[in-house]
């Protein structure tokens, strides 16, 4: 089955450039207590934004509100001028076990969003082939998710989230249930895919080193009611490697972020 990927790509995705996300005046109360009050946020397209903040400050809720899974009390969400219904979003959950469909094979899981969007069988196969190539998948995708390792399952989740070439990819602590080796491998694949496609990525992380390593922008959040303590910019070139971790600029940004976090989270 030979399909011209580039031609396919332009056909499926007329909006390769991604889009900016703006949140303004967002207010959200939970159980009568404020989580966000008049909260503003800007997420730049074609960048990786990492969100870092204390436990329970509302990181997951923020992504869920932006993606429309959780209603907001008041405020405005805008997606580069497009209505939400025209914005396609990929979402990777922390717990891949609960997010993949165990009754479908790994490859069918990846195809599912394409099926749901009404793609023909041929186009689905072509897109999956392309993803397999992009992620350099070395395991058998015709197995069921529960037959794969945690790292492989999370990789399948990421491929599923990217299948429809979304404008934005959200990841909520995607590595926290994985061992160190799998984390390193997947996060570098994620970076490669970002370099290749420029998809806008927003990732919640509880590991500051990982956040700074991947991010162009690091959003440091305070405890509830949640504000942005600081938006730190890290401009190191990509692909970043293990050497980046000892780069003085990296060390400085990390130390600075930690200091801000300590001040705001206590």
């Amino acid at each position, binding site marked *: 089955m030979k399909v011209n990927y580039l031609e396919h790509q332009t056909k499926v995705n007329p909006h390769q450039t991604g889009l900016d996300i703006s949140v303004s005046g967002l207010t959200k109360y939970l159980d009568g207590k404020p989580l966000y009050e008049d909260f503003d946020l800007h997420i730049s397209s074609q960048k990786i934004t990492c969100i870092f903040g204390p436990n329970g400050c509302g990181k997951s809720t923020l992504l869920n509100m932006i993606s429309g899974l959780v209603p907001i009390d008041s405020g405005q969400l805008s997606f580069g001028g497009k209505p939400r219904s025209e914005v396609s979003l990929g*979402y990777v959950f922390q717990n891949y076990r*609960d997010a993949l469909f165990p*009754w479908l094979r790994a490859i069918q899981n990846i195809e599912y*969003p394409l099926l*749901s*969007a009404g793609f023909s069988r041929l186009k689905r196969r072509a897109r999956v082939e392309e993803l397999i190539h992009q992620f350099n998948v070395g395991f058998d995708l015709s197995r069921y998710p*529960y037959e794969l390792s945690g790292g492989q399952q999370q990789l399948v989740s990421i491929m599923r989230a990217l299948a*429809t070439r979304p404008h934005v990819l959200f990841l909520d602590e995607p590595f926290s249930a994985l061992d160190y080796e799998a984390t390193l491998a997947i996060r570098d694949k994620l970076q490669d895919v970002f370099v290749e496609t420029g998809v806008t990525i927003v990732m919640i992380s509880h590991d500051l080193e990982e956040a700074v390593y991947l991010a162009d922008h690091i959003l440091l959040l305070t405890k509830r009611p949640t504000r942005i303590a600081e938006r730190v910019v890290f401009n190191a070139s990509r692909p970043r490697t293990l050497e980046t971790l000892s780069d003085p600029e990296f060390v400085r940004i990390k130390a600075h972020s930690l200091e801000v976090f300590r001040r705001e989270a206590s």
Partner: protein
Amino acid sequence: MAKAKLHFSSGVSSFLIANTGTLLILLIWWVVTALQLINPVLLPSPVATFVALWEGMAGGGLLLDFWLTLYRSLYAFVIAAVLGIQIGILLGANENLYRSFEFLIDFFRSTPATAMFPLFLVVFGIGDFSKVAVAAFAGGLVIFFNVAYGVMNTRKTRIMAARIMGTPRWRVFFDVIFFETLPQTFIGLRTAISLTLVVIIVAEMFIGSTNGMGQRIIDAQQVFDMPDMYASIIATGIMGYGLNQLFLLTENKFIHWKGR
């Protein structure tokens, strides 16, 4: 050659291991009747029993009664499944609706279905259908409860994942909630098939019936035809066991992800 022999003997020994208990009971039964430790009118020999079973199944009335009971049980089960699954999904998906019926549901779940015989006789008359209806009621409640519980406890993450992908709500229902609920639904179906059989047998025994295994067991007991009574009990057991195995096999084949 040697390998084939080894295979054969290991097959025999594994059969023996799996059935030691059964063979032991048959042996004790045989010894007890051979030594006439129990009045032979109460306990016939295993040979007499299995001869009665064989003859009854090969042309005697046992086969007809067997089919009739199986037919009634399956009839009741199908009604139970159709109603139970639909109402289960409806109430499971609307938690408020479920809450408003919760007391009623718990009340009927705790009421033995057999206590409802007279009510069903009044409503459906003394014919065949009232038996089927009671059994369907009992089985339907079990299925309904399991399905509703399954729907209410679907993991939110999978539903969220599907909704994020832009899957319309009705499709989320078929593609996600339905599958999420399947393991629990199957538990309900398996419990229900056993239960409908129990209720049908009891109904055949006590609600003016002229055929079926329940009636046959009671009749045999009343005329002291003990081989036929034991044969009928064993035949009923085989039916129940067979149905249960059938469901287990289907379940293991289709719900491969269960418990993983």
